[in-house]
């Protein structure tokens, strides 16, 4: 398997900064949020897709965190705690179907192409956007809890226990959701000409 690199982990704030955040110190909050925001964005995008409302979801996550900081006891790391809030915000967001069917934002697609291809052709951008749209349409179709369990466990690399805690489910239910989500998603991908082509092309490149 390819691409098994560990994601960059944002450094944890020291105890004094955390205490200042609990007191509502604006400067401390800004410092922590600036360090943690990129990881939160990545998590949100994995969960919802590169949509136009990623910025809104990030902002909502930060506001929820700001309101909850006085109750943060430091049992988990700030990164884990903020991740939990982001998952909760995304969960709420996905529960409203009218918010789920938004097209993939073109600038976000362009953004993800830039590191590998500084001048992507318009048709290439459109093609990748189509692939992402198709993938997230299939994820939409498999149900919210299965989708979140799958993305957090399989794509984001979290443990079953962590995913279960994040979604308020038992370990057994989480395993079951991951199993069925994976099966349903792969069946859908196999029947989707756009994604089937992607897999075939990558197979040829191997």
């Amino acid at each position, binding site marked *: 398997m390819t691409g098994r690199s560990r994601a960059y982990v944002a450094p944890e704030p020291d105890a004094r900064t955390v205490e200042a955040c609990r007191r509502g110190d604006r400067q401390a909050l800004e410092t922590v949020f600036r360090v943690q925001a990129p990881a939160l964005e990545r998590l949100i995008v994995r969960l919802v897709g590169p949509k136009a409302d990623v910025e809104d979801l990030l902002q909502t996550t930060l506001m929820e965190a700001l309101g909850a900081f006085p109750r943060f006891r430091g049992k988990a790391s700030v990164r884990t705690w903020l991740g939990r809030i982001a998952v909760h915000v995304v969960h709420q967001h996905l529960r*409203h179907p009218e918010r789920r069917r938004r097209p993939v934002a073109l600038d976000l697609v362009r953004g993800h192409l830039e590191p590998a291809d500084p001048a992507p052709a318009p048709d290439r951008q459109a093609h990748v956007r189509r692939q992402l749209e198709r993938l997230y349409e299939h994820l939409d179709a498999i149900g919210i809890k299965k989708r979140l369990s799958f993305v957090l466990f399989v794509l984001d690399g979290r443990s079953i226990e962590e995913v279960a805690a994040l979604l308020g489910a038992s370990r057994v239910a989480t395993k079951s959701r991951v199993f069925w989500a994976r099966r349903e998603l792969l069946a859908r991908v196999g029947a989707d000409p756009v994604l089937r082509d992607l897999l075939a092309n990558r197979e040829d490149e191997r």
Partner: protein
Amino acid sequence: MRASCIRVALLIKRREEGLSDADRLVLEDHLASCEKCRQDAFAIDVLGELVDSAASSPLSSGARERAITRAIRDAAGKPLPPVRASRPAATLLVAVAVAGLGVALLLANRRPSDSPSRQATAATPRPEVAAGPLSLAKHATVSLAQARVSADEPTELSWDPARQAVVLREGAVSVSVDSAPGRQFRVLTPRFVVEVVGTEFRVDLAGVNVTRGIVRVLSPESEDLITQLGAGQSWSVPPAATPELLPAPARGRSASEWLARARRHLAAGATATAQRDVAAALAARPNRSETAEARTLLAECALVGGDPERAAELYVAVSQRYADLPAGETALFAAARIQVNAGHRREAEQLLRSYLDRYPSGRFQQEARARLRALERRE
């Protein structure tokens, strides 16, 4: 012995965090000899790469900075009431209220705890309420944990945050509960308990009506399940169990009294008596809204009596005749629900689409969309 594909399915991940060395060995051993799982693992990798690359730099630094600045600025501003709006910014507004409240409380060094008897008046939604009794004026709204509770009439209740429970003593409330993982919300009455996770419903001392999601009705003593209700369904306390709450109506009843009697008989399963009550209600010069309710009750009688086809016909008739009333909306969704449950896909789709066309932001629109999607998936 080679591990099964089912076991290995849970070991195939885009990232290897959380896999022990033993699990890695099992996985590699299995993949070496199982073409199907190897293909699946490859597909997961390719899809993961697609997602990862999109997630590598999702927001410009300007957009990120904007989100951080707005979050801190808005939270430091005046707290907003937690109003549920239908547009996508609803979550934002609620979050602003919660965050703003947090900062306001911090700045004010926290007020002393509320007095035992408190009053909430109409149009003054309270962001948070401490434990204890509370009197709500009609239309007053309070936020209790993950729920928004609105009084439909003057209401006496108390809030028990440890049990995440509202104890309803008098009146009627409409409750909207946001789903919170692992957290249940309850409304306790002397005769029954309503238990929910994320849903909308109305409850008074005589019963419960569900607008969205699923509600469980439990016995207050043993907490045995009495019934489970979905959107558009309602339940009333059987008359035998509540003589003091539901006194027998006097002679010369009005249409509304006959209808109340019909509901009680229907809840007890006495459909024939309920139908007679409805006939009496229709003969007692009901207004239009009462007529709609009477005809809806006839449909419910048919449903409880085991004739869903007749019930669906009657619901459709109500929905056509009283489309402008809440009863018409409920009837259309109820008819669709019957067709879904009966496996009549075409009829169900037609009714659900009619519902969404007619009531695009109706009380059951989320349920209708979800059911429609489920039907389309089965296609």
